[in-house]
């Protein structure tokens, strides 16, 4: 993780370090901190692709308002990763297009259509 090591004013109190996956790759982050922040610290910049133009989208507003960081988390699409806390073992995936809604409870998560 790429983190600020020393700061003249601030101390960073991180929580427990946990592992999660991004598109199948295992990464580390701090539990309880936003998923989007953990991805950014791991060098991930592209979080989703838009439905029509397939444009890349990443971290933008950080307050759950702009929809830029929507991703598929544990099979659920359109998760605002900038305000959703990271949990151990989470499966985070790039979202392609609008994402696919799971209709059945317990329905197995399927990859989104690209």
């Amino acid at each position, binding site marked *: *993780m*790429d*983190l*600020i090591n020393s*700061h*003249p*004013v*601030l101390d*960073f109190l*991180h929580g427990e370090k946990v592992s999660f996956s991004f598109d199948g790759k295992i990464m580390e982050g701090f539990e*309880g*901190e*936003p998923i989007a*922040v953990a991805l*950014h*610290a791991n060098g991930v*910049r*592209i*979080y989703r692709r838009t439905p029509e133009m397939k*444009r*890349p*989208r*990443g*971290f*933008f*507003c*950080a*307050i*759950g*308002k*702009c929809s*830029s960081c929507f991703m598929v*988390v544990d099979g*659920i699409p*359109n*998760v*605002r990763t*900038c*305000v*959703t*806390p990271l949990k151990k073992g989470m499966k985070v995936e790039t979202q392609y297009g609008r994402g696919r809604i799971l209709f059945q409870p317990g329905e197995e998560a399927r990859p989104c259509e690209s």
Partner: protein
Amino acid sequence: MRELTTDVLVVGGGPAGLSAAAEAAGAGAEVIIAESDLHLGGQLVKQSHKFFGSKDEFAGTRGFEIAKILMNEIAQNGDRVKTMLGTTINGYYGDEGVVTAMVGEEEYLRVIPQKIVVASGAQERLLPFPNNDIPGVYGAGAVQTLMNVYGVVPGKRVLMVGAGNIGLIVSYQLLQAGVEVAAILEAMPRIGGYWVHAAKVRRMGVPILLRHSIKRALGGEIVTGAEVNELDEKFDPIGAAERIECDAICLAVGLAPTNELLWQAGCAMKYVPFLCGHVPLRDKYMRTSNENVWMAGDVSGIEEASAAMIEGRIAGLSAAKALGLKVPDEKFDGYRERLRDLRAGEVGEKIRAGVEAVVVGGWEERT
């Protein structure tokens, strides 16, 4: 669907909302604070600089420390104040007296409040230019969150767009975090923020390019640079664009009130450029034209956190009074005086003019 009832629902746990909750609970009301983020304090938690203004509003104290002071004040009221994090109020159904809340991404619930204080804050403005949507273009607030709350830098070399207070302060904070600031662009012929903030970044060697704007972000997928142009007095580009190498572009071009809930609640609104967008009409108690809805902070017009805290106190107190709780009138006078002091002088000129355009004598005309 789960259902909650409360005397006062405070929408937003930033400086305005926390102050409103503290006052309402202090007067004896049961309060729920609904905060969409994962922590209370709103934008205060990422303000690592010391505040200006008046001592009553914690001048000389760093923003994140002010947030702690407010949270401690709320804690004094025991369990009269309940906090819901990760909770977005997204629907107002006035006829049924219900608002809907989304908790996390999947859970919805109904809240039945007697009174509502909307302190939903603001959101960043975007600037139109090619490639403004690609990763590497950030809102200034997002950069502050990444860096000052979570200790993650946005990039190695940042181009800042906007030399208002936010652009200047965030530039300085980037330098503190060890990030290079390539330049600060400002379309106006003068720096918008305070002289002291500008002097700090200039001393550290960051160029502030007045009459300059961004032409486009470069990079197919992720920002690798930017083209910038000098502007003439009509804001049209002059000459050939200059290339600036950077891996992040930070937009600090202003904020707009997050006013959707107030529109839904049928509050009479007015577009006021000095307050940066559509804001509700209000009486001197921060009450909207909807008798059950108050406002405080940036949603009532973009201003500083110090003013937001006083507005919150007035709104929270007034909501408590409307519930029939005992509230001494002198308290309102005291807060209004502090607000007047804060908005005095040249610095507060635009805010005073903005507020004058939306304040009403009373709501007798209410139907």
